[in-house]
């Protein structure tokens, strides 16, 4: 009816500058859509600012306060002085004092400490006699960057520190020998550090994306509406979406590790079964987090952005690129909340140190806790109606 009542006046169509006109029309449309998508808009600002602040302050390639342990086989003044001197350098922080070799090895193997100083029995007496005994220093060289700086500075530190204790005369001569032992990676080959790390990083990236898009895809394609009208529960949807990718992730992990072993000569000292089991746990944790993202966002673009938000800190704060021990405490706490941090410890420990489940309780539990947390959020956040 209205078409009869109010015929629209005919407007002229201009042909000049058609290219610019059409580009402009497209540009206006894109801006409007961008403005409507509030979350994306916020991410455009938040992503760079947050990431820059976060990583700018957190990343430090010369690690400080490396978690360390001392194996004291004699309790002498000299031993105390040396420890004090080491601690004063801010390179080391002595967390454990043990008297048994097994405990000492265990601490290193589980990754609780990166550094160990062993003061052998009869050390002080040997020094006084001028026997030049050996002070053993064991470093976890699975992360060569973290270890090498500390080892390098060791000699000088001890020398200057002991000068005023009159153990060292003038001209300075070391009354004992420092024997540094780079454990697990004596050649400090970076591939030994990087390859196991890559297993975790690649898995994080691929797993996250797989599930991060899964719910939004259903919403965008319109299939969610009929899915919701059918008798299926949120947990069932989640499990159905996660499980196929556990298999995919498993194949992927197998591929990366095979290449690492075959081409880069990375050893697998520990149990393959344990590695497979804990890798599966890690894969499932990442898939759950991806799925959680998927229930939080409105479209696929947001899902990708949020995945990036999660992925970048995973790379930078987990100890993959930069030594974990070098980060300030707050950044370390943040790192502890990332599954990759725990998996890196696990995968490095199993492959390079031959660690067993005994050494990996904490990181395994942390992964499981993160997985359950993600799943709980996902199930509660999953919208059962279209309200």
């Amino acid at each position, binding site marked *: 009816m209205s078409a009869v009542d109010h015929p629209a006046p005919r407007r002229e169509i201009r042909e000049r500058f058609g290219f610019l006109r059409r580009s402009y029309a497209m540009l206006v449309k894109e801006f409007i859509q961008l403005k409507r998508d509030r979350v994306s808009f916020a991410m455009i600002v938040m992503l760079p600012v947050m990431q820059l602040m976060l990583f700018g302050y957190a990343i430090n390639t010369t690690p400080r306060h490396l978690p360390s342990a001392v194996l004291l086989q004699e309790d002498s003044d000299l031993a105390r002085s040396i420890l004090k001197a080491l601690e004063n350098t801010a390179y080391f922080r002595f967390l454990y004092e043990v008297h048994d070799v097994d405990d000492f090895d265990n601490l290193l193997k589980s990754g609780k400490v990166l550094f160990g100083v062993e003061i052998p029995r009869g050390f002080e007496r040997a020094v006084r006699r001028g026997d030049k005994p050996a002070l053993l220093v064991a470093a976890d060289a699975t992360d060569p960057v973290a270890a090498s700086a500390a080892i390098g500075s060791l000699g000088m530190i001890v020398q200057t520190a002991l000068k005023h204790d009159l153990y060292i005369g003038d001209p300075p001569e070391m009354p004992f020998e420092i024997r540094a032992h780079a454990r697990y990676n004596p050649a400090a080959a970076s591939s030994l550090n990087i390859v196991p790390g890559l297993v975790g990083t690649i898995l994080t990236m691929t797993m996250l994306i797989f599930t991060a898009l899964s719910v939004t895809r259903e919403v965008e394609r319109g299939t969610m509406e009929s899915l919701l009208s*059918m008798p*299926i529960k949120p947990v069932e949807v989640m499990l159905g979406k996660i499980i196929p990718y556990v298999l995919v992730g498993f194949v992927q992990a197998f591929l990366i590790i095979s290449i690492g072993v075959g081409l880069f000569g990375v050893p697998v000292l520990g149990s393959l079964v344990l590695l497979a089991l804990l890798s599966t746990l890690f894969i499932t944790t990442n898939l759950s987090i991806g799925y959680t993202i998927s229930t939080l966002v409105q479209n696929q673009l947001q899902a990708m952005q949020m995945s990036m938000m999660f992925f970048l800190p995973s790379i930078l704060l987990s100890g993959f690129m930069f030594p974990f021990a070098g980060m300030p405490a707050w950044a370390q706490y943040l790192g502890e909340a990332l599954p990759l941090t725990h998996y890196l410890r696990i995968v490095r420990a199993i492959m390079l140190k031959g660690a067993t489940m005994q050494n990996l309780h904490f990181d395994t539990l942390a992964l499981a806790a993160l997985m359950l947390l993600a799943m709980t959020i996902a199930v509660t956040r999953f919208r059962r109606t279209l309200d």
Partner: protein
Amino acid sequence: MSGGNGIAIDVKGLTKSFGGREVVHDLSMQVKRGSIYGFLGPNGSGKTTTIRILCGLLTPDSGEGTCLGYDIRRDAEKIKRQVGYMTQRFSLYQDLSVRENLEFVARLYGVTDARGAARDMIRRLGLSGREEQLAGELSGGWKQRLALGACTLPNPQLLLLDEPTAGVDPKARRDFWNEIHALAAEGLTVLVSTHYMDEAERCHEIAYIAYGYLLAHGTVEEVIAKSALTTYTVTGEGLNELAAALSGKPGIDMVAPFGSSLHVSGRDVPALEASIASWREKGGLRWQQSQPSLEDVFIELMGRSKDNFQ
């Protein structure tokens, strides 16, 4: 059978708002078991929202009622098992084949022998030979037929069809309606929303909803009778000028062209007669008083409700 009182849907005072805008207003309706209930109304009138409330996809702000004897608020899960909902937009998986889609639905509802059930449905739908084709590659008519098949597969008691025949050719539309009548004959209750008047006339009962208000309901004859509309059909030359001249005149509620004729309708008969009097004498035009069509009634209702509610 649950709620065996012969009523499939019984709701009172349903209200639903989105972002402060009331989409469904105090809606009450009853649908008999085994009947085909047509849901009509302009776009954005609240048809889809009402259907979604009935199958538990939306929670009403207020109002109550039962669907197949289950409370629509508390028993959404039970309702979902007994209801087949065909969405307005094709919502099966485009990247799954016909067979895979049907098997998925069958498994979700726990149909025993999902493969067999899917195979039977493919045969019933006449999709044999196409079972491995991806659903996204089917033509509009086949897609809609597949969607109907998917929602009847788990043997529901109630079908909710949201504009199932939009954009489908007349032959496919007729086949579709034959299928719906066959299903209703088997005892299924069908609630179907549509814009097509010929489809409305194929329903046992219809309801007209506009701007969230249920304006009329009953059989087609009842709705037409209740409208108290008087309609003249005009044929001849210069109908465009006549339409322009008559619209808005006192007593004339509606002027609508129908092919080579023009329908002029109004409820106030004396005023209508007065307004058209001068035109009736004019040569070249043939005036005939006729029964208003369902479309006349609806367009008039729509125009009226617009004045009242917008």
